[in-house]
């Protein structure tokens, strides 16, 4: 019994000492290194990000970066952030947010404004001036820099350059032109499975762009100075253009079922002449498994409405610092580094991420690694941000759901437009 109690006491003393030492060392450790936790999506090349972070840590030994990998889709990613930030969690320091989110994060007070971390106004202007203008704008809410651009994306017009060449055609500049070309080629090819144009009308986020492309092309705007600026005739013209495509047989009848990846898969299988899609599709077309269209794909600016301008829809992601972070200065420094031209170049070359700097698109190394970025730049320059408002989700729902019901033939355009005006108006009230 005696020995047992002796051993027991020894154990108690030993473990107390150990705990004490651990506590003391962690205090010192805390003073020596600053831990930063970065939250990125599962499909945003965490492996590549880790390499970049390793380089940063090597150059900044007092920083320790931990990566947390989140949901695979923008939606799941955001759901997790919504929950964690509503609970005011302090463990996340930096996260990636979708390009449509800064206004929401600003209103909810979830992102730390980064203005002060540039040191001086001059330095801020110098840094921000380098970005593509649309991206600078998308990240600034009421003068506050809510986040910094990470990488870009845009909607492109992909086309079968082999088919266009065969019929001696140049990429179309207007939608009616595209329809004519599609019909010419279809008549010549006599292939019932060949679609003229593939675009998305499923009730997904991308369909917001489907609505906005012709609308913007005609000069329409959704929000001006924080108020609704809806132009119903222009919207109607836009929807009519898409419905015409289906009516003429240029696009298929069940377009309301078509999502982003459906377009990509069908174009990749060689069954589409013109496709409206995001930047990710290029790699699949050129080097995806079983691709039927390698080296046959051209990229062009999206056609305009007659009398309008060519526009594209802006995508991409931004780095934000959590308002609840305990290491804001260190996090801001890391974010500035992540959003620098040098890092952007690395991401472009090693991960095919679209740069957010015009200069990087034109960088020789980048062009050598990814030749098509040279063609991509003019398109990216036409890209416009989707409506900037904290209630973006509501606006998005109004636009994509009504576009979907119109293209499905379930709702009349006039009804749909009235509902859009009502719901978007309510959202920006």
């Amino acid at each position, binding site marked *: 019994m005696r020995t047992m109690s002796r051993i027991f006491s020894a154990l108690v003393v030993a473990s107390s000492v150990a705990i004490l030492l651990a506590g003391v060392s962690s205090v010192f450790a805390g003073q020596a290194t600053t831990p930063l936790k970065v939250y990125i999506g599962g*499909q945003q090349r965490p492996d590549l990000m880790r390499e970049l972070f390793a380089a940063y840590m090597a150059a900044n030994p007092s920083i320790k970066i931990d990566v947390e990998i989140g949901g*695979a889709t923008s939606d799941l990613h955001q759901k997790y952030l919504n929950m*964690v930030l*509503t609970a005011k969690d302090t463990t996340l320091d930096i996260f990636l947010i979708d390009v449509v989110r800064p206004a929401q994060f600003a209103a909810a007070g979830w992102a730390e404004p980064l203005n002060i971390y540039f040191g001086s106004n001059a330095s801020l202007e110098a840094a921000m001036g380098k970005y593509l203008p649309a991206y600078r704008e998308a990240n600034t809410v009421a003068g506050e820099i809510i986040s910094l651009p990470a990488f870009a994306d845009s909607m492109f017009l992909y086309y079968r350059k082999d088919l266009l060449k065969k019929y001696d055609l140049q990429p179309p500049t207007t939608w009616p032109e595209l329809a004519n070309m599609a019909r010419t080629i279809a008549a010549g090819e006599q292939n019932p499975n060949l679609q003229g144009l593939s675009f998305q009308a499923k009730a997904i986020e991308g369909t917001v762009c489907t609505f906005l492309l012709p609308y913007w092309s005609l000069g329409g705007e959704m929000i001006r100075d924080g108020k609704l600026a809806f132009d119903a005739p222009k919207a109607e013209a836009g929807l009519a253009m898409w419905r015409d495509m289906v009516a003429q047989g240029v696009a298929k009848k069940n377009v309301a079922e078509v999502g982003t*990846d459906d377009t*990509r898969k069908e174009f990749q299988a060689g069954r589409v002449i013109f496709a409206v899609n995001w930047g*990710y599709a290029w790699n699949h077309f050129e080097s995806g498994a*079983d691709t039927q269209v390698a080296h046959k794909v051209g990229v062009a600016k999206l056609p305009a409405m007659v009398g309008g301008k060519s526009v594209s829809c802006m995508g991409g992601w931004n780095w934000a610092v959590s308002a609840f972070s305990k290491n804001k200065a260190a996090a801001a420094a890391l974010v500035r580094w992540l959003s620098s031209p040098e890092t952007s170049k690395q991401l472009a070359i090693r991960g095919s991420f679209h740069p957010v700097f015009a200069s990087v698109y034109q960088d020789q190394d980048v062009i050598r690694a990814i030749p098509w970025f040279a063609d991509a730049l003019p398109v990216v320059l036409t890209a416009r941000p989707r409506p900037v408002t904290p209630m973006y989700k509501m606006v998005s729902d109004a636009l994509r759901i009504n576009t979907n019901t119109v293209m499905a033939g379930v709702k009349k355009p006039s009804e749909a437009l009235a509902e859009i005006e009502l719901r978007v108006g309510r959202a920006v009230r």
Partner: protein
Amino acid sequence: MTENKMSSLFSSIRLRWFAAAIVIINGLFPALWILATSLKGEVELTAKPITYLPNSPTLLNFISAFRDQPLLTYLLNSAIVAILSTMLSLFISALAAYAIARLNLRRRDLILTSIIAVSMFPLVTLMVPLFEIMRAANLLNSYWALILPYTVLNLPICTLMLVSFFHDIPRDIENAAMLDGCTRLGALWRIVVPLAAPGVFTAGILAFVNSWDEFLLALSLNSAVAFRTLPVGIQMYQGEFAFPWPIISAALVVAMVPVVIVIVVFQDKVVSGLTSGGLKG
């Protein structure tokens, strides 16, 4: 003995085969579809006319499934969480069900209804507070973060099933055992539970599958890769736009195998011959 037409119809072997065929097709078809898809290349999915069996079967999807994500880790995590929460749930609900079914308890209905009330709230609205609880208890990204909520989520169905089955067991058997010197709790574990085996195993299967398939909590509370469960892991194969059905089907096949094993092994215990001999009369 007169047999009316209906009974001769039901007893006809032909009809039984027909009915059996329908059951088998109904149950197996989607699972077989998933299996077939997991062996196809992506291009085949948009072929017209659609193909059922793969044209050129490939195991690449399975290789990719294991390579792109630590699928075995996810499998292990799901197994640990599901097994432990099921056992805990069965234990706690056995105790509670015994109290409700057997013992002199006022307001039984109220208690039963409060237990069932747990399933009346959409889980998504309980997420933020649950996250806060787990964070405060420092249990985020651990097995207990899921085991505890799953136990509670499965309490209603387990309790209700066991109450019903305990109710059907005549009191005399227990009373006889207790006269022989057995305690109440002893009677519960040695007599009542074994006699209620079909109910116990059914509740166990239901709880296990519920825990195995649960997505929302697993996504929010165990986001770290080391503790991720299967449903969350499988959605990680998606891209922002891309939904690679072949790879996801392969992962689904892997996810379903343990569940199928559990069901096959235990459904035998559900129908093990307790009807012959009979509990009543």
